[in-house]
């Protein structure tokens, strides 16, 4: 028993940054609900969750190349491209809708796979390779949807952007007022989507040899090679999974807004925010340390900060300035470790 406790303690110590991010999110979110006139209600939670899904997925997408020690500047663009594809395909009969969603996810995944091939076999730095492929993704998105618009199934839009009650009610799986269903009926569907897709894909992936190879590459690529790990496959897999997560974000964005919009500014903002979320979630930009769940938390922190502007009467013009200051302060907390370092050479390791 005591050894289990010791394991837990050492696991928290090793994931100090993640634990800190969770605490920060809880504090920010509780305070937000206290200040909000209708705080702690399902409606507020649903609205918040809805607005968080896309950035959460994009941040998780960004995490995986960052763990390798690289950056993926195409995640926002791949999300936008996927949203535009979804705005064309996700409608019609139920079968057509499902096929449309699958096609959207496959398209984003394939794009990520190409990123990986270019990085590995083109021997390019990820940051510059994805800068180029990101522009290509935007070009394709504009080609598919020159003007904002589209036609996404209305039922689907309603069902996945509200509570579980509405989801069941829309599709009539069973009586949504059933007594056994009541305790979970309030849960927002977007929150479930984040948990199921995010945790459901990431946690198992992390425990595969490929997943661990990604960590090993970011930590010490030479040692990874000497240990006979599949380096090229892991790099390709990292970008492929990034493409998949970005496509998840794009698909949800299209369903949520019932349209697609090849907005270059928005794509860029998503990419940059994804990097901020990754850092907030405790992943090292040098690679090897962190994880996508941390980025999930980091993205939620970014979102909660922006929610405050709705309830506090701050001039909207000040929003970017305040957001920047808060982000700087939050990231600085992660730099506290520097004060404990006694050998200055360790600062550069």
């Amino acid at each position, binding site marked *: 028993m005591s050894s289990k406790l010791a394991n837990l303690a050492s696991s928290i110590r090793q994931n100090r940054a993640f634990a800190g991010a969770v605490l920060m999110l809880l504090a920010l979110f509780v305070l937000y609900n206290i200040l909000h006139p209708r705080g702690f209600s399902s409606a507020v939670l649903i609205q918040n969750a809805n607005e968080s899904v896309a950035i959460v997925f994009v941040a998780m997408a960004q995490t995986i190349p960052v763990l390798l020690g690289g950056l993926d500047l195409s995640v926002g663009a791949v999300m936008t491209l996927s949203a535009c594809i979804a705005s064309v395909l996700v409608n019609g009969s139920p079968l057509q809708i499902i096929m449309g969603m699958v096609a959207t996810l496959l398209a984003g995944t394939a794009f990520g796979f190409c990123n990986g091939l270019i990085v590995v076999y083109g021997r390019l730095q990820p940051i510059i390779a994805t800068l180029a492929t990101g522009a290509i993704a935007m070009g394709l998105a504009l080609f598919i949807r020159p003007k904002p618009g589209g036609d996404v199934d209305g039922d689907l839009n309603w069902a996945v952007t509200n509570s579980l009650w509405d989801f069941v009610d829309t599709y009539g799986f069973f009586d949504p007022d059933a007594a056994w269903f009541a305790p979970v009926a309030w849960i927002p569907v977007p929150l479930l989507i984040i948990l199921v897709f995010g945790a459901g894909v990431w946690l198992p992936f992390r*425990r595969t040899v490929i997943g661990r190879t990604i960590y090993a590459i970011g930590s*010490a690529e*030479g040692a990874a*090679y000497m*240990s006979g790990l599949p380096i090229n496959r892991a790099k390709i897999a990292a970008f492929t999974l990034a493409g998949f997560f970005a496509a998840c974000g794009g698909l949800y964005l299209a369903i949520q807004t019932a349209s697609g919009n090849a907005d270059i500014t928005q794509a860029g903002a998503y990419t940059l925010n994804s990097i901020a979320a990754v850092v907030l979630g405790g992943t090292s930009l040098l690679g*090897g340390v962190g994880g996508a769940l941390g980025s999930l938390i980091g993205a939620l922190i970014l979102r909660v900060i922006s929610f405050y502007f709705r309830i506090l009467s701050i001039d909207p013009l000040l929003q970017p300035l305040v957001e920047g200051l808060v982000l700087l302060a939050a990231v600085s907390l992660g730099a506290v470790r520097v004060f404990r370092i*006694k050998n200055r050479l360790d600062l550069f390791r």
Partner: protein
Amino acid sequence: MSEHPFLQLTGVSKYFAGTRALESVDFACERGSIHAVLGENGAGKSTLIKIISGVLKPDTGSISIDGMPVDYASPADANAAGIVCIFQELSLVPDLTVADNISLAQPPRRFGMIDRRAQREIAEHLLARIKCEDVDPNALVRDLSLSRRQMVEIAKALGKRPRLLILDEATSALTRNDVETVYGLLADLRQDNVASLFISHRMNEVERLCDTLSVFRNGRHVETFAKGEKTDGQIVRLMIGREVDAQFPPKPAPTEHPAHLRVNALSWEKRLKGASLTVGRGEIVGLGGLDGQGQKELMLALFGVLRGVEGRVEVGETSGVPGDPAIAKQAPRRIALVPEDRKTEGLMLPMSIADNLLAASYAYVSVGPFISPALESQAVSEAVARLQIKIGDPQDAVATLSGGNQQKVVIAKWLMTDPDVILLNDPTRGIDVGTKQEIYRLMRRLADEGRAILFYSTDYAELIGCCERVAIMYDGAIVAELTGDAVTEEAIVAASLNIHAGAFGVTQ
């Protein structure tokens, strides 16, 4: 027993950018044997190992295992054939746990995913086998000491069920108890008919463990013989190909040197525990002892790299521990440090030779805020001439130079600041004999110019050959100071182990 040796190399050669690393080497390794490979740095030992373990491909020649020719594409292929190497540069991933590292390439799996419980059990089992129960399988490798990391490395190698185990200086960082454990382990493996290749510079280890010895020199396999066939002196002669003499410049007659660098009761964290010593102008003081007894930290502290150093440091009339390398190198202290690892701390490898030479002394070649191209090129050509650095163009990347010439660039860089105190942290590690001798002569010349030199070396012969006085460190403090004729290998070894001379078998 099969008629073929386990491993056979025939006519293997390897060239790097035109220079020969291995030249038509024939080499064989038998099952159930512990086989030592001896040779100087640059003799081709590490190239040989890299070829056997699949890191490098030979340019010519063939390798066969059990009489079957093989051709590996990667270390993973060699592992699959049962060839496992414990590398000198550790192959551990610092941000993963001990258990992750031990089964890094071939983890136990359930439903396609890594079975962490099984992985932990494997780690516990292997760590117990090498008596390292104190290592927590869930700890990050980053948080372990160097000696524990090396033991984890050994556990990792064992987990691959080797048929040929290669140990490349694998005991260099270990504690004495660990070394005994590894000896026992190798004996067990020999019983199981596993072949071991053992690379070490410690002759007493080789004597104790190995049954067969092979000597390499200048990329050639000189001779292989059974233990006891040759005396130590004969082996050394085989290794260097001539008598050991005239390596070192003559020492001057002993004189009194006014103390210039005075260190008193220097302490830092748990690595320095009240180290005290003095170095006079015109004097070369050796710093000895086993690796990792605080020699590196002492030099870093004097150079202002460490935070929270306690104790007194005086350089000439100036007292106080410098707060920063930038302060340490300036007047009035004028300290220079040639660091341990030239590739990360000494050089900026992708930058040009000229930039590296000038990195510490831009102030001397600048006019106002601008670097003067004329002064710059003059200073660079002076430095190149002074140390006879063999270069093509000063604008070439410093990474293109050989190890010896890279080290000369590091030393030249610091000489350009005209230092009064020169700290040398193992400056001859991994460089060829010719360059070594040049460095010894240079050190003597610098001392004769009145500079104070503190010289740390892991090679006892260097300390004996170069220094008037040798201070031996043990566990963060100076435990002995040897002067003049008292500087002998026996005395250094005994002091390094913090025991009295005569109690321990001495080699060479």
